């Protein structure tokens, strides 16, 4: 802008006075040669007392502002020395003793010959803006803390392409990924390859159409483990209300799934148990008559050896049926356990010698025991509890026909439950088989009846406990039995 006459100069001064910034023009020596009205207002001095004074006497002149003044001075000196602009932010106490946060631009002004003529100080009052920033920061901090505190939730936002643009801090607990590792990556990273291929785009389509989509799904953690969640996806709208992405909220339902599995197994087994009891009764009567009559026939002396042999075979086969029915009845047994206070570690120790009476693979199995003594006692039926662990130990043994390590660990969970873990280093159990493993007659063994684990399940349930399986194909299986304190 070129000023051609006095009126333009007046206009310029008017503009300077009315600008909503603090303006101060000082000589390279620091003497104020121009100040606008806003500056006079903030520092609370008339223009006459400002002009000709060193700027540092006018700004930051109180005791508490001393250090800031030093810094501000250093900035200004820096501008003079290195002939470049600089910025400074500091608090000034105005005439009414209110603290104002000012953000200064320090700009050197040069003559046509590139000599420094002076320095322009432009100050913005950023008090309110910073206060708002602080409030926002606090909200963000609060949100962060909320999500860190709620461990079973993950919250993240993607853009329309599905790339993650926001990842709440606490999400790392559930998903294993830290924010820095996952931000800007595609959300399909959190899904199984199959889901990522088809279900994900279907879900997002539904969100676009209906605004929300909720489903039970497996998410993939950083360590490739899958975790069951309820995933809720919402539209993410920008400030204009336009769809700009998706908000994902995932709730960990591992515990609920475990519980559901237990309930599902219990109900299934209860129904089968009823059927089994009824059937066993109906089978027992005719079977009893068959065996009894045959045994009586066998005592006839007139029989030739061939017939005796045949009858012997039939009796043996009938005996097989009888034993099976017996097991069935045991499985269907409804009588409540005879409860007494038990030390679980002692109960297990008592079972170990019995292992030798069972047909176990010949290969060498190393037994590692970590049975903690003096655990809180449980309330249990010793015979039944020992049957549980005998079954689990035999299974673990049989899972290692090539040999391996069998680990037995007992410990106090502290939540009024004790836990026993029985691990083998055998072949592992497939997902499909785990689903059926407690079903009566389900077996993968050549000569198994498939009743052992269903009986184990019932006993543990009747004791108010739970039984879980952790298994990895090729690595081994762990049965985890939790039983409540007495």
């Amino acid at each position: 802008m070129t000023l051609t006459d006095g009126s333009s100069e007046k206009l310029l001064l008017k503009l300077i006075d009315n600008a909503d910034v603090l303006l101060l023009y000082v000589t390279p020596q620091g003497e104020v040669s121009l100040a606008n009205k806003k500056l006079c207002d903030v520092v609370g001095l008339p223009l006459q007392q400002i002009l000709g004074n060193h700027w540092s006497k006018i700004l930051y002149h109180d005791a508490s502002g001393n250090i800031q003044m030093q810094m501000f001075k250093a900035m200004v000196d820096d501008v003079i020395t290195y002939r470049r602009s600089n910025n400074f932010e500091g608090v000034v106490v105005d005439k009414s003793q209110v603290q104002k946060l000012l953000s200064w631009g320090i700009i050197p002004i040069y003559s046509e010959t590139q000599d420094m003529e002076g320095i322009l100080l432009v100050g913005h009052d950023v008090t309110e803006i910073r206060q708002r920033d602080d409030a926002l920061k606090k909200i963000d901090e609060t949100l962060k803390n909320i999500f860190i505190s709620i461990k079973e939730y993950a919250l993240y936002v993607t853009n329309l392409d599905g790339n993650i643009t926001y990842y709440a801090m606490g999400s790392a607990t559930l998903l294993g990924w830290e924010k820095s590792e996952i931000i800007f990556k595609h959300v399909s990273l959190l899904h199984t390859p199959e889901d990522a291929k088809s279900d994900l785009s279907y879900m997002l389509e539904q969100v676009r159409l209906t605004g929300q989509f909720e489903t039970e799904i497996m998410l993939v953690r950083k360590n490739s483990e899958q975790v069951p969640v309820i995933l809720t996806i919402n539209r993410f709208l920008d400030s204009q209300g336009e769809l700009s992405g998706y908000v994902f909220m995932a709730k960990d339902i591992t515990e609920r799934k475990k519980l559901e599995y237990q309930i599902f197994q219990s109900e299934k087994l209860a129904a089968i148990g009823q059927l089994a009891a009824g059937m066993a009764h109906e089978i027992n009567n005719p079977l009893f008559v068959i065996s009894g009559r045959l045994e009586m026939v066998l005592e006839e002396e007139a029989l030739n050896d061939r017939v005796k042999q045949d009858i012997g075979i039939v009796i043996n086969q009938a005996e097989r049926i009888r034993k099976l029915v017996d097991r069935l009845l045991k499985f269907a047994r409804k009588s409540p356990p005879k409860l007494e206070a038990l030390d679980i570690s002692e109960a297990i120790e008592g079972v170990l010698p019995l292992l030798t009476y069972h047909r176990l693979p010949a290969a060498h199995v190393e037994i590692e025991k970590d049975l903690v003594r003096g655990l809180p006692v449980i309330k249990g039926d010793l015979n039944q509890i020992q049957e549980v662990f005998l079954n689990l130990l035999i299974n673990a043994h049989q899972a290692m026909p090539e040999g391996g390590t069998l680990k037995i660990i007992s410990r106090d969970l502290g939540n009024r439950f004790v836990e026993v873990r029985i691990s083998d280093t055998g072949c592992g159990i497939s997902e499909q088989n785990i689903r059926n493993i407690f079903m009566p007659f389900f077996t993968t063994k050549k000569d198994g009846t498939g009743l052992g684990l269903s009986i184990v399940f019932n006993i543990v349930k009747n004791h108010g406990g739970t039984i879980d399986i952790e298994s990895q194909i090729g690595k081994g299986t762990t049965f985890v039995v939790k039983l409540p304190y007495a």
Partner: protein
Amino acid sequence: MGNRVLICDDETPVRELFSDLLKKQLCDVATCMSGEEALDIVTKETFDVVLLDIKLGGMSGLETLKKIKDTKPETIVIMITGFGYDEQLISKCKEYGCSGYIGKNMPISQIISNFKLFVKSAKEKTA
């Protein structure tokens, strides 16, 4: 052995099998098909032992047991059960005064030896 035994079971083949088995043990055997019948017979005649099915149509085995014990307390009653070892049921029977039980899921040899054992110990108790 020479005991007088009444066998009460509503299933004919079972009843006959028990009858034949006990006859071989030299018992004097009578049979009937219901609890009502058993009670009637026991009231009129004297038996050392009643072998009583726990699951009977009409009057239940448990009730029949109670009534036999009320009428002729000296009669030894042994229950027959198809349910294997059912603790609740057995303890109920014991409460009502039965001297033992025989499961139809037991091998024949065990049935006979249990029968003898129960009779012997019951007799020792009353003696």
